C-alpha cells in the first residue's frame, strides 16, 4: 500500500520539483521579494506577540491566563480557517481534479487513493496556517523559555491539529457531494465558506476581545479571573492544543490534551476512510453530473443592454460579458458577502470611536477622517485585489478568441478598468461619505476626502489591471486563488505605496489648514502649499492609473498562448 501511495504522490512531488528548478526570467528577484516580505511578516508578527507576551508575563496571577486565552483565540481562528479551507480543497482534490479520471480507471486501492488525496487536501489548505503558526509559537517559546524541546512539542501538537480538520473537512465534502451534484456543491460550499468567514469576523467583533485587556470593565478581579480560567471550548482541538502549549510553558504539562489530539486525529482518519469506502464511488459518479443551468435574459439584462448602447457595440458586449460572467460565478460574487461584512465592521468601528469628551479637540476630530482615508484606501485595495486583479487571468483559456478577433488589447483592458473602477468608486464614496457623516467632519475635510478617495480609486483600479496583466495566472480555475499569487502580493505592496505617498503629500496642506482653523483664528494657509500638495497627490494617482495600464497593454500585445 505504501508503494502505491508513493506512486500516487510522485507526480505532485515531481511537479513541485520541476517548478522549483524551472529557469525563468526574474525568478531570482521574485524569490528574493517573497522571502523578504515573508521575513518582514514573520518579524512583525513575532515582534508584536513577543512584546504583548512579555507584558503578560510581568503581570502576576493573570499573566499566564491572558497568554493562554490569547493562544486559545488564535488557535480557534486557525481551526476554523483550516476546517473551511479543507472542505473546499477536498472538493477539488477528491472530486474535480484532472487526474481523477486516470486514477478512477486505474486499479488503485481505495485506501491508497484516500490517503493520497487526504494528504493533498491537508497540505494545500494547511501550509498558510503553518507559516502563520511559526512566529506565534516562537514568540510563546522564547517569552516563556520553552527550551529546545518546545520545538518537538510544538510539532507533536501541530501535526494532529492539522490532520483533524483535514479528515473532518474531507468527510463533510464527501457527504455534501453525495447529497448534491459537485458543481452545485462547489457553489453551495463557496457561499457557506464565505458566510462562515463573515460570521467569524462579526462574532470576533461582537465578542470584542480587547475587553479582556481592560479588567476595570469587570465587576471584580475574581470575576475577571474566573472568565479567564473557563475554557472557551473544551471539546475543540484548539483548546487541547492551547492547554498543551501553556502546560509545557508554565511547567505543568498535562498529557491528556496531547493524547486527545492524537487519538481524535487517528479516529477522524479511520472514520473518514470508512466513510470514503462507503460513499466515494457514488459521490464521484455524481460529481461528473452537472445540473441544468438555464439563463434567459431578464429585464435587468435588457435594461443594461440599452443603457450601455451609447458605448458602442464592442465595449457594450465586453461590459455585458464581464457582468454576466461575474454574477453567474458563485466563487466570485459570494465574495461580495465578505466585502459587505468588512465594510460594516469598518463603519461600525468608526461609529464607536470615542471622539467626544474631554481632550478631544477640533484638530483630532479633523485628523481622524484624514487617517480614515488611508484605511479606506486599504479596504479598497483589498477589494480591487479580489475583483479587478484577476480580470486578465480569467481570460486565459479564451485568449485565442480575443486575440484572433479585431479587438484591440487597449479596448479590452480599459473595459475591464471601467467595469471594476465604477463599482469600486461607488463603494469608496459610500464608505467615505458615511464615515465622514458619522465623524461630523468640516466641509473642507469632506471635500479633501472625496477628492482623494476618487483619485485613489482610479489609481488602485489601474494598478490592479496593470499588475494582474503583468503577473497573470492563466491556468488557475478558481478566481479566488489569483489574488494570493506573487503578482497579488506585489499589487498590494504597490497599492500601499501609492496610498502612503498620497497621504504623505496631502498631510502638509491638511495639517496647515486644520491648524490654521484651530489655532490661528481661521486664517487660511498659503494657496501655493495647497495646490502643490494636492497637485502632486493627483499626479501620483494619475501616474499610478495610466502607467501600469500602458505597460499592461504592451505586455498583452506581446503575449503568445
Amino acid at each position, binding site marked *: 500500500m505504501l508503494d502505491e501511495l508513493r506512486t500516487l504522490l510522485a507526480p505532485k512531488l515531481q511537479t513541485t520539483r520541476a517548478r522549483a528548478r524551472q529557469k525563468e526570467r526574474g525568478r531570482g528577484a521574485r524569490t528574493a521579494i517573497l522571502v523578504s516580505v515573508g521575513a518582514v511578516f514573520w518579524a512583525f508578527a513575532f515582534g508584536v506577540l513577543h512584546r504583548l507576551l512579555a507584558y503578560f508575563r510581568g503581570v502576576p496571577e493573570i499573566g499566564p491566563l491572558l497568554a493562554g486565552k490569547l493562544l486559545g483565540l488564535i488557535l480557534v481562528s486557525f481551526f476554523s480557517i483550516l476546517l473551511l479551507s479543507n472542505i473546499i480543497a477536498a472538493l477539488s482534490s477528491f472530486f474535480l481534479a484532472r487526474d481523477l479520471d486516470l486514477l478512477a480507471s486505474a486499479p488503485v486501492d481505495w485506501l491508497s487513493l484516500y490517503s493520497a488525496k487526504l494528504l493533498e487536501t491537508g497540505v494545500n489548505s494547511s501550509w498558510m496556517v503553518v507559516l502563520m503558526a511559526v512566529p506565534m509559537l516562537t514568540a510563546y517559546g522564547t517569552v516563556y523559555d520553552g527550551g529546545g524541546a518546545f520545538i518537538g512539542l510544538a510539532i507533536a501538537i501541530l501535526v494532529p491539529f492539522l490532520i483533524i480538520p483535514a479528515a473532518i473537512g474531507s468527510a463533510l465534502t464527501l457527504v455534501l457531494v453525495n447529497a448534491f451534484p459537485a458543481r452545485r456543491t462547489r457553489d453551495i460550499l463557496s457561499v457557506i465558506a464565505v458566510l462562515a468567514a463573515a460570521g467569524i469576523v462579526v462574532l470576533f467583533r461582537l465578542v470584542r476581545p480587547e475587553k479582556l485587556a481592560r479588567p476595570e470593565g469587570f465587576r471584580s478581579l475574581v470575576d475577571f479571573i474566573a472568565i479567564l480560567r473557563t475554557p472557551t471550548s473544551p471539546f475543540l482541538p484548539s483548546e487541547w492544543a492551547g492547554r498543551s502549549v501553556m502546560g509545557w510553558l508554565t511547567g505543568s504539562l498535562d498529557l491528556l490534551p496531547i493524547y486527545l489530539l492524537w487519538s481524535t486525529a487517528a479516529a477522524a482518519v479511520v472514520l473518514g476512510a470508512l466513510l470514503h469506502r462507503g460513499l466515494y464511488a457514488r459521490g464521484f459518479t455524481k460529481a461528473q453530473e452537472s445540473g441544468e443551468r438555464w439563463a434567459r435574459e431578464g429585464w435587468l439584462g435588457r435594461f443594461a443592454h440599452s443603457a450601455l448602447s451609447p458605448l458602442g457595440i464592442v465595449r457594450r458586449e465586453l461590459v455585458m460579458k464581464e457582468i454576466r460572467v461575474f454574477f453567474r460565478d458563485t466563487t466570485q460574487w459570494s465574495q461580495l458577502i465578505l466585502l459587505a461584512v468588512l465594510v460594516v465592521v469598518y463603519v461600525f468601528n468608526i461609529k464607536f470611536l470615542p471622539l467626544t469628551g474631554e481632550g478631544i479637540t477640533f484638530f483630532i476630530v479633523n485628523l481622524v477622517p484624514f487617517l480614515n482615508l488611508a484605511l479606506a484606501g486599504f479596504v479598497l485595495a483589498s477589494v480591487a485585489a479580489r475583483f479587478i486583479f484577476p480580470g486578465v487571468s480569467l481570460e486565459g483559456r479564451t485568449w*485565442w478568441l480575443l486575440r484572433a478577433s479585431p479587438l484591440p488589447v487597449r479596448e479590452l483592458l480599459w473595459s475591464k478598468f471601467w467595469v471594476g473602477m465604477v463599482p469600486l468608486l461607488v463603494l469608496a464614496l459610500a464608505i467615505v461619505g458615511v464615515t465622514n457623516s458619522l465623524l461630523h467632519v468640516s466641509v473642507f475635510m469632506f471635500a479633501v476626502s472625496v477628492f482623494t478617495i476618487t483619485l485613489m480609486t482610479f489609481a488602485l483600479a489601474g494598478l490592479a489591471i496593470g499588475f494582474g496583466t503583468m503577473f497573470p495566472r492563466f491556468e488557475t480555475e478558481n478566481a479566488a486563488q489569483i489574488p494570493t499569487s506573487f503578482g497579488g502580493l506585489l499589487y498590494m505592496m504597490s497599492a500601499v505605496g501609492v496610498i502612503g505617498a498620497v497621504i504623505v503629500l496631502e498631510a502638509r496642506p491638511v495639517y496647515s489648514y486644520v491648524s490654521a482653523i484651530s489655532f490661528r483664528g481661521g486664517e487660511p494657509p498659503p494657496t501655493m502649499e495647497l495646490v502643490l500638495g494636492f497637485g502632486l497627490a493627483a499626479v501620483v494617482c494619475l501616474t499610478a492609473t495610466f502607467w501600469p495600464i500602458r505597460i499592461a497593454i504592451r505586455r498583452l500585445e506581446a503575449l503568445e498562448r
Partner: protein
Amino acid sequence: MIELRSLTKRYGSFTAVNSVDLDVPRGELFGFLGPNGAGKTTTLRMIAGILRPSSGTVRIAGVDLAKQPTEAKQKLGFIPDRPFIYEKLTGVEFLRFVAGLYGQSGEDVERRGRELLALFDLEEWRDELVESYSHGMRQKLIISSAFVHKPEVIVVDEPMVGLDPKAARTLKDLFREYTRRGNTIMMSTHTLEVAQSMCDRIAIIQRGVIRACGTMDDLRASAESGVSGLEEIFLRLTGEGLARELIEVLDA
C-alpha cells in the same frame, strides 16, 4: 486570400515553422496536413494573429496582419482545436459576444445565430450555460461563432475532433457551400479521407517545412510512383508510419 511569405516561428533554438511560403486563393478549401508536432497549429495560430511570427509576413485578403491587425482580423474567423469558451455564458450569448467583437449586432446577428445553432442541432441548448455542454457541442458552438460575423477567410484547426457523424457531414457541406460562394478556408486535419474528399489543394508540412503542396495529382507525382491514396502519399512524404517498430513495441 491568404499569403504567407517566409513565415518562421522560433522558440529559443527550436524552429517550429521554417520559412513557409504559401498562397491560398479566393474560393479555395485548402488542407494542411502533417504529423503531430510538425508545425500545423503554430502556422494556423500565426495566420489567426494569436502568435507573432519570428520573421516573415501574413496577408489576409491583401491586408498585412502585422501592420493592420484590426483590418486583417476583421476578415477572418478562427476555429481552434481545443474548445475553450466562457463557461458562464449561454450559447446564444456567446454568439452575440463574438459578433460584438467584430462590431456587429442587431437583428441580422440574431437571425444568423439562430440559423447556425439550428444547423448544428444546438437550438434547444441556446439558453443553457456553456459549462453544461459536451466537448462536441462546444466545438459546434465555436464553429458557429466563426461564421456568425460572415468572415471572408476561415482558419480551422482540426474541425472534426469531437463531432458526431451528422455534425461532421453538416460541416463538410457548410465548408463546400461557403467556399463555392467565393470565401476561403484553410484547415488542418488528421482525417486524411476528409482532406482527400474535400480539399481543392493540400500542403504537407513536416518539421516546420512544407514537403509538398498541390492538388492530389501533384502530390501523387511528388510522392514517386505506385501510390494513389492520400494516406500512402502522406506516409511516403513524411517517412513515417513504417510498421517495423510495431512488432518490437508489442513484444517489448
